[in-house]
């Protein structure tokens, strides 16, 4: 890993070995830690998904008991959302934001160190629940009471782990905001910032607004269980549905936290390989901001079946449909950026184009789910599972992989193997569609989600989906191999790396110096 950074003669020596990583306050080191941690969690969460798909390969119970199956779906979601996708984006933010805005480092380096080092403890706690009496949490990642209150000894550990993840995210978000507001090089006005910086700025505000809400809701669960409150217990004057409202007030912005930075990444990659500036830069910024605003007023579309009054259902249906407008603007802008460009299709571009197509498919099913009268049929079926995996896997995860290929030469100074990268893209794209597309059909045919066993009419599509799942899982080992190979060596990367790349990070050497811009660059 030492190749990822070089010593800067003008600066004090920093520790090497393990101490370097534990005490580091350097944005690149911390970015690397975040990214490696995310990769590890991606493998852990992926292994859980393999167990789920193995059990669902055939009707009947073959490998695991229903309770453990439920633990797997619950833990898979928590690990992937809070352990893989979010830390991966924070890692990218750490590496890239200072380089993109012409700053030497993040504004709050010590807090940066702390916000990372909380995570291994949070997930050690969460994963240790697998070995506790009563098993790991099995009430779903949404933690709905009263079911979640039936969790065994794992319950307080679940809550504590969620608190830690929340604290880490909030600190990361504060750091991003302070850095972007205060550390921009002279001349880097807000409307000159790269879109990745913009989308992260907005994401950071979403995090600060919603993580405390999640913390509050799980704390109420904790007091309901241990301190005789009854926030969510009707027998004591509470309401279990209130939890769902509070949870999704966090949960819906959360899904945009998981996708806005991906929008930013794709908006960096497409112009580079189309060799043409991003179409509609300012409308992209406004669209991102409108999506963020709308994300706060649509939460109850996750709970159309709880028995809201008609007017409530209508409001949340209309508001949700409205999100299609700014999201559409983004897709149209990306397509227009490609239009009349001079395109080449290196691996990052393949992932970006794959993102646009498959995220849009996820967007279409999202629009379908927004229509309340049909959502009563789709809700809690595999149609929903297909929908959110299209936006999260072929959306967020594809963007993260595209970003890795795009910036890895900058970070390591080495080119990755283009042949293997393309192979990874095509294998991933084919297998991921075999994995998730049939789940639309399963859901429409009436298969509920979160069940370990099913009626034989659903067998064929489940088998197809499982085969796709195993193939997708295996393919990611190739990704791990490519990343390690590139870190360890390879063809030297130039400063600019990509012919069409624009932006401050491409003016630094590859790999960049330990402190990015010691003197502020000039922005034309």
């Amino acid at each position, binding site marked *: 890993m030492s190749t990822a950074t070089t010593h800067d003669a003008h600066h004090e020596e920093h520790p090497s070995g393990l101490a370097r990583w534990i005490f580091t306050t350097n944005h690149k080191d911390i970015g690397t830690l975040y990214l490696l941690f995310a990769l590890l969690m991606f493998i852990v969460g992926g292994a859980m998904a393999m167990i789920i798909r193995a059990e669902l390969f055939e009707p009947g119970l073959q490998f695991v008991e229903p309770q453990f199956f439920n633990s797997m779906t619950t833990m898979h979601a928590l690990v992937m959302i809070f352990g893989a996708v979010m830390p991966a984006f924070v890692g990218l933010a750490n590496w890239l934001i200072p380089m993109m805005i012409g700053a030497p480092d993040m504004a709050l380096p010590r807090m940066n160190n702390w916000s990372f080092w909380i995570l291994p403890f949070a997930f050690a706690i969460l994963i240790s629940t697998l070995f506790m009496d009563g098993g790991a949490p099995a009430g779903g990642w949404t933690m709905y009471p009263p079911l979640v209150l039936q969790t065994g000894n794992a319950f307080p550990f679940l809550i504590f782990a969620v608190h830690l993840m929340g604290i880490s995210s909030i600190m990361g978000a504060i750091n991003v905001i302070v850095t972007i507001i205060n550390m921009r090089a002279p001349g880097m006005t807000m409307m000159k910032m790269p879109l990745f910086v913009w989308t992260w700025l907005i994401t950071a505000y979403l995090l600060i607004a919603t993580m405390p809400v999640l913390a509050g809701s799980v704390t109420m669960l904790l007091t309901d269980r241990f301190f005789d409150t009854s926030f969510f217990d009707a027998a004591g004057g509470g309401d279990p549905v209130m939890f769902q409202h509070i949870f999704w007030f966090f949960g819906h912005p959360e899904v945009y936290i998981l996708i806005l930075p991906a929008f930013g990444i794709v908006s960096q990659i497409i112009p580079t390989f189309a060799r043409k500036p991003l179409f509609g830069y300012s409308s992209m910024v406004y669209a991102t901001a409108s999506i963020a605003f709308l994300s706060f007023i649509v939460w109850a579309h996750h709970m159309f079946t709880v028995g809201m009054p*008609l007017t409530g259902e209508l409001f949340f249906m209309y508001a949700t449909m409205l999100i299609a407008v700014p999201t559409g603007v983004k897709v149209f802008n990306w397509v227009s950026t490609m239009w009349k460009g001079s395109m080449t299709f290196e691996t990052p571009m393949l992932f970006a184009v794959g993102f646009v197509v498959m995220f849009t498919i996820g967007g279409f099913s999202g*629009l379908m789910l927004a229509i309340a009268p049909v959502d*009563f*049929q789709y809700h*809690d079926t595999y149609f929903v599972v297909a929908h959110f995996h299209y936006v999260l896997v072929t959306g967020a995860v594809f963007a993260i992989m595209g970003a890795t290929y795009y910036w890895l030469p900058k970070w390591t100074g080495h080119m990755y193997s283009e042949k293997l990268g393309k192979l990874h893209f095509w294998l991933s794209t084919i297998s991921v569609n075999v994995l998730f597309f049939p789940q639309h059909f399963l859901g429409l045919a009436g298969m509920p989600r979160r069940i370990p066993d099913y009626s034989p009419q659903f067998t064929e599509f489940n088998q197809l989906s499982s085969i796709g799942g195993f193939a997708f899982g295996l393919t990611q080992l190739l990704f791990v191999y490519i990343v390690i190979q590139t870190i360890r060596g390879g063809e030297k990367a130039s400063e600019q790396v990509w012919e069409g790349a624009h932006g401050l990070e491409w003016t630094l050497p590859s790999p960049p110096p330990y402190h990015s811009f010691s003197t502020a660059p000039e922005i034309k």
Partner: protein
Amino acid sequence: MLVSKTRRALTAGAGAAALLSAATASADYKLNLTRGVTPISQGAYDMHMLILWVCVAIGVVVFGTMFISIIRHRKSKGAKPAQFHESTAVEIVWTIVPFVILVSMAIPATRALVAMEDTSNSDISIKVTGYQWKWGYDYMDEGVSFISTLATPKEQIYNQQDKGEHYLLEVDNPIVVPVKKKVRLLITSNDVIHAWWVPKLGMKKDAIPGFINEMWFRIDREGTYRGQCAELCGKDHGFMPIVVEAKNEADYRQWIADQKGAKAADAAAADRDWSMAELMERGEKKYAANCAACHQASGEGIPGTFPALKGSAIATGPVAQHLDRVMNGKAGTAMAAFAGQLSDVDLAAIVTYERNAWGNNTGDLVQPSEVKAAR
């Protein structure tokens, strides 16, 4: 399978095309949403097809443009990059056009939703209660009530027997309703949140403890319609199906009369003394249906989650305390109150069974009359 393979091939290239071919196979229940057998399910299906086609059309335009660009505007084909990067007019158009499309979809959606939520003027009201993991039905105007549990044997689930035709979608006591009548369901739960869903009836509603939700349907055709609990409700969430039998008015009346007769016979049975052998035999069956999901057939429970009854302090202690725990449950835990779910005879049989099975040889015999007195 072959059909789905070609469909998949399309997916890789253009997802919209795949969605489209799914739509054309709409008659096939395995691929598309069911049309169902109620006005509600028909309405949902129509909305579904409308929005699906709108998405397909938008997909064709957007992806079509993109693929033309990908084919034509390549560097390898000598394409020179244009430098345009802004057009307010275009931005306004592609904000307004989608908005108009959305409004045109919101109008029929609103109409469908208003119709679905109108539970007024119903002919029959049935209270539906979700339990971990079974459904309770209570015909409020008739005084008929019963519990409906999974009928698929464990051997089929654990692959020791071939799976039956309605594997996992069969119950011991189906809910019976007359056709062409507006049936209103009052849905609630006794423990955690469940959701009542039969796809062919067109709607699902959550069953929430302490609250009552409403939903309605009017079935056009006689037949048997199957569904499942749709909200994660714990270990056996996948094993609490719903079966609705829609009958003509005369058959429905007959069924109600039969149910009432059975109930009267049960009440009479509670007044006589039962022998140990009778109680143990009935107790074993009822225990298997109502308690074994948690406490296990072996009485050993699941450590850390569900306590063992084998040798437990309560199951071998005073009878009154044992009976109280079973009838009234324990608040805040998964142990529900069974007084409202089970008859006097069943409760007496189960408690007797628990006190004498698995080596809990207390020798105690609990009579239905004692249960009646404890109510």
